[in-house]
């Protein structure tokens, strides 16, 4: 009787599946905010399209951007909330006296992030088709590249937040919502990087999300996939992932030294 890493990761995914299966408001909530965001920006775009040549020409850019911003936001929440669930339910101590490795917890949270984000975004993306005659799926394969990069960066941010919550306790839980919004202005979701002050532009380019949103605008306005932005996002994501995973494992060791794994909960 010995569990494999796949079984242990599967067990945690199953735990979160059970949680959602038993709560339809949670499932509804996942799709609610992306849909509302999409509707607000879709209607704003329709209004502006009648008053601006640029918007008329780039109709759909805002809807595409808001949908992809939600991928980043939900990717972050997917990981952070999966971790917070374990802390709220005082389950961390139980989990870590089972054969579960910390890195397997991270893997399970990443999978949960993928599932939660997809379930959350898909209804909004589908609704945009009849509402605004805009299908983000027309982007084709580049959409997959944008989606994967943003989801991954969001999950990496969620992992960093989880590390801070593990270290500083549930008093830091609001970081799950707050931190990612700090990246919104400098990720240039709705406007090009050139709009930012010159001194802030290098900071913006250091984010994978900026390259994705620049790439999205190029794809929608020029009809081409910019590989440079894609590769930049990919490399930056790899760097941030290594940093966030290292931070989590480091904090886990600190938690084992300070006895934080048992002293958690509401």
């Amino acid at each position, binding site marked *: *009787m*010995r*569990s*494999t890493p796949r*079984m*242990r990761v*599967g*067990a*945690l995914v*199953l*735990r979160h599946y*059970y*949680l959602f299966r*038993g*709560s339809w408001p949670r499932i509804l909530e996942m799709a609610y905010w992306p849909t509302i965001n999409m509707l607000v920006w879709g209607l704003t775009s329709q209004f502006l399209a009648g008053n601006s040549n640029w918007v008329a020409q780039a109709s759909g850019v805002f809807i595409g951007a808001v949908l992809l911003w939600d991928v980043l936001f939900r990717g972050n929440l997917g990981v952070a909330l999966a971790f917070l*669930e374990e802390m709220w*339910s*005082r*389950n*961390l*101590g*139980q*989990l*870590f*006296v*089972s*054969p*579960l*490795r910390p890195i397997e917890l991270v893997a399970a949270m990443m999978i949960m992030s993928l599932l939660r984000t997809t379930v959350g975004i898909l209804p909004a993306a589908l609704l945009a088709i009849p509402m605004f005659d805009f299908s983000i799926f027309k982007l084709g394969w580049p959409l997959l590249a944008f989606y994967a990069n943003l989801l991954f960066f969001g999950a990496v941010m969620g992992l960093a937040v989880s590390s801070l919550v593990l270290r500083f306790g549930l008093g830091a839980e609001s970081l799950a919502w707050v931190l990612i919004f700090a990246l919104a202005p400098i990720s240039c979701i709705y406007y090009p990087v050139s709009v930012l002050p010159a001194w802030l532009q290098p900071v913006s380019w250091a984010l994978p999300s900026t390259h994705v949103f620049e790439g999205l605008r190029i794809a929608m306005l020029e009809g081409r996939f910019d590989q440079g932005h894609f590769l930049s996002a990919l490399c930056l994501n790899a760097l941030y992932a290594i940093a966030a995973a290292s931070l989590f494992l480091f904090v886990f*060791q600190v938690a*084992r*030294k*300070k*006895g934080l*794994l*048992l*002293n958690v*909960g509401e």
Partner: protein
Amino acid sequence: MSVPTSAVRVENLAKSFGATHAVDHISFTVPRGGCVALLGGNGAGKTTTLSMLLGLLVPDDGTISVLGEDMVAHRFRVLDRINFSSPYVDLPHRLTVRENLSVYAMLFGLHHPRQRVEQLAEDFGVAEHLDKPTGRLSSGQRTRVALAKALLNDPELLLLDEPTASLDPDTADWVRTRLEDWRAKSGAALLIASHNMAEVERLADSALIMKQGRVVEQGTPQELVERFGRSNLEEVFLHVMRSPETSA
């Protein structure tokens, strides 16, 4: 490779939090198949000791061998052979009892998780609650579910932190009987941290009395009672706790 004779061997174990010596260089062993109790008042270091044995807490000093493995360096080699229950941790309240036990059955890699979950639920008298959310159970029922979870992997070593705390006398007695039965059948070792002297007298082969992080007395319950000329372990405990000679 020979099988180690002790389930737990602790030598010179120490842990401090700032200026507080939570555990102050203690040594003890739990023989295979034996039951040892850690006694002590609040803050005596019992839970800290258990946390170190489980690998949840890294000691400042000393060594811990669990089932022959160095628990500080290689805890993942033994975590599937031990288990634990404590009132300080919980199972997710929104999941049903069956869901919670199934998740842990999978974490421990059980071959027939469904049968095992149902059998343990039957053994611990929670079969009719299997499909209820864990949070809706009474504290006594939740304790029984936690114990069922702790026995899922048929552990060779079970660590229990105050297993009958907050239970009424009838339920507590019921739980002790189940633990006795399980131990007799499995031959597993048991380490209990407890405030409850009757429980210790009934379950434990030997007891260590901790005070301010140190082991100040140890022996079988009967030996301790005779050594101090008292009529039961509770009187011994009160004497030791109140006596300046045994202050750590």
